């Protein structure tokens, strides 16, 4: 989408341009490769295979603590993201994101924030087994989720929120780098622990196969892949480690009610049995 003019023509001063970097482990490093590419007039970091590996390490390190946080706490953090996004809406409109899409993205954070302490009751519960046993199933995060993300702000929020609300951590490959990194700045100032969301900008075809085959990535969300050959290649790569794969849905309408599937596809079900008796 076309950016609104960022350079305000005045006689006295030139605008200070933003350098768009990666977002890994709560920090904003340049690509270790030193490479950049030009997107919509800005030089943005071109992530390498090593950057992807670093991001997976950061996501793995953050995962136990994030999953171990109370659902109430995770909900609060997601709501805080909505607050910060609301406060920074002008930055997104300046990047050309329509105002109603910013609204929808804010509202989506609020919607998912409320799911943190409800999904376990909706997707789990007591099982009436035929015997003297306490038997209960509860959803648990899959772990580290690699996401090949769509470009739009609402699309990004629609893949990040369902992954992290349940305790997964994520590594995203983002198209639309300026919007993605600006969203990362929102996350970085929203009490989201470093490493929970990691954002790489670059070429899907170059970095995505490494994430798909990475031994320490537990699930792969292909929502942002619009080329069927690349999707098939990534699915094949994911088969080696038996990753959970969320396939791209044809022409996803991000404004529609997402339902439970974006969350449940990234959850495992754990069932615990214990005898009952005196």
């Amino acid at each position, binding site marked *: 989408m076309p950016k609104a003019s960022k350079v305000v023509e005045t006689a006295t001063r030139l605008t200070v341009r933003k350098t768009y970097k990666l977002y890994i482990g709560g920090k904003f490093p340049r690509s270790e490769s030193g490479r950049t590419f030009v997107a919509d007039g800005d030089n943005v970091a071109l992530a390498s295979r090593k950057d992807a590996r670093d991001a997976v390490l950061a996501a793995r390190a953050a995962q136990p603590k994030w999953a171990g946080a109370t659902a109430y706490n995770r909900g609060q953090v997601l709501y805080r993201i909505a607050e910060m996004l609301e406060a920074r809406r002008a930055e997104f409109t300046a990047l050309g994101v329509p105002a109603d899409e910013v609204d929808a993205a804010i509202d989506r954070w609020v919607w998912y924030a409320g799911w943190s302490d409800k999904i376990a009751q909706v997707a789990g519960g007591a099982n009436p087994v*035929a*015997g003297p046993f306490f*038997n209960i199933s509860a959803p648990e995060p*899959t772990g580290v989720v690699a996401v090949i993300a769509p470009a739009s702000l609402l699309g990004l929020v629609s893949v990040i929120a369902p992954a992290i609300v349940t305790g997964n951590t994520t590594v995203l490959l983002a198209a639309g780098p300026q919007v993605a990194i600006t969203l990362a700045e929102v996350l970085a100032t929203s009490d989201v622990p470093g490493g929970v969301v990691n954002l790489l900008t670059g070429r899907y075809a170059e970095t995505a196969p490494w994430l798909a085959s990475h031994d320490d990535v537990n699930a792969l969300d292909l929502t942002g892949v619009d080329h069927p050959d690349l999707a098939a290649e990534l*699915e*094949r790569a*994911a088969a080696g480690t038996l990753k959970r794969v969320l396939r791209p849905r044809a022409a996803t309408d991000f404004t529609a009610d997402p339902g439970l599937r974006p969350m449940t596809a990234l959850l495992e*079900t*754990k*069932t615990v049995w214990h005898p009952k008796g005196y």
Partner: protein
Amino acid sequence: MFEYAPAPESRSVVEIASSYGLFIDGSFDGGKDGNVFKTVNPATEEVLAEVTSAGSEDVDRAVAAARRAFGPWSALPGGERAKYLFRIARIIQERSRELAVLESLDNGKPIKESRDVDLPLVAAHFFYYAGWADKLAYAGFGPDPQPLGVAAQVIPWNFPLLMLAWKVAPALATGNTVVLKPAETTPLSALFFADVCRQAELPAGVVNIVTGAGDTGAYLVAHPDVDKVAFTGSTEVGRAIARTVSGTGKRLTLELGGKAANIVFDDAPIDQAVEGIVNGIFFNQGHVCCAGSRLLVQESIADELLASLKRRMATLRVGDPLDKNTDIGAINSAAQLARIKELSEIGSEEGAERWSPECSLPDRGFWFAPTIFTGVTQAHRIAREEIFGPVLSVLTFRTPDEAVAKANNTPYGLSAGIWTEKGSRILAVADQLRAGVVWANTFNKFDPASPFGGYKESGYGREGGRHGLEAYLA
């Protein structure tokens, strides 16, 4: 110690034909290319029957039959589909003695287990999913969930009829039609099930059974007119299937291998724990993907527990599967016996200490004495690889954190066990274990209402319970 008198179940309750065809579109017929294979009784090596090996043309016919049947079957009101499933459940109950004997003959498992575990669970699965057929709108997958179409189902030899029930019951309840391939060493109870379908007057083509080996299964899961693939078996084959299915849009669920940790803390009731350990690894000759094959014992009670375990193992009766007193039957095939022997040899070579109770094994058939390895470390192959036999690796730990770390140190994540009298410890440890089923102070319990399935390389999706419906609904 007194001796038991032989107490054999009569095999005359079940008739086995000398040869079987394929069950396609409601009737049995021979394969197009005329290839057959033999299925043997692993306890005696006696040939039980000749079975048709389905070729590509046969699989095409079966998929086509399932496709034709899909329209009318899925259009049937849920309540009517339910009635067919209830009928099947009832017929299985009525014929359970025949089926139990047949299962023990073809698989080698003790009649005590086929009669008291497999068959009751098989009937229960059909009853459970029958009840879902007219309630799918309330299952939590949206107001109008739809069936996927034709399901290709490939099942293993360790629980031939139970795995069939786990796959067929939810598929039919949700309005899908199926082509099922049983394992080549245990096809007989699936073929018997075809007769149950006929007896229930299930419409032709809704269930199709194609027998054969890996090639038949590979062709079936790759078939372009299949909408859903469900597989239970080894992680290696599961990986290959995941590759085959990638990019096709077919839905896939996998129930793969495991290397479950059975964790015994120092405050566990020793006698109960020993029973649980024995049940965990020697049930069904250890041919169980969720078997408790890695025993983690807290160091302070290791000697006491092992002495007790060895005492208990000495009372296990290995032999004739049809004898009602038999605890451990035959290993399912020569190939599986060879794998168990190979990995056990490796265990000894790598320095673990091997022990089996005194027991005489029959001269013919495939047999392996219950075995434990002590002094096992996490690097040993017997602690890492699935042996799929009556072989237990014993490791020790000192702290709960160490127990959790060792338990999770595996690419698998199907099941785990916890033995302790302390409730808070059960809950804390269960929370940290990366496994789909956690048994606390019990082991190897199954129920149609309870979801079953793994984390990590133990596969994806769940079978059983409300969760089991998801695999068959769009």
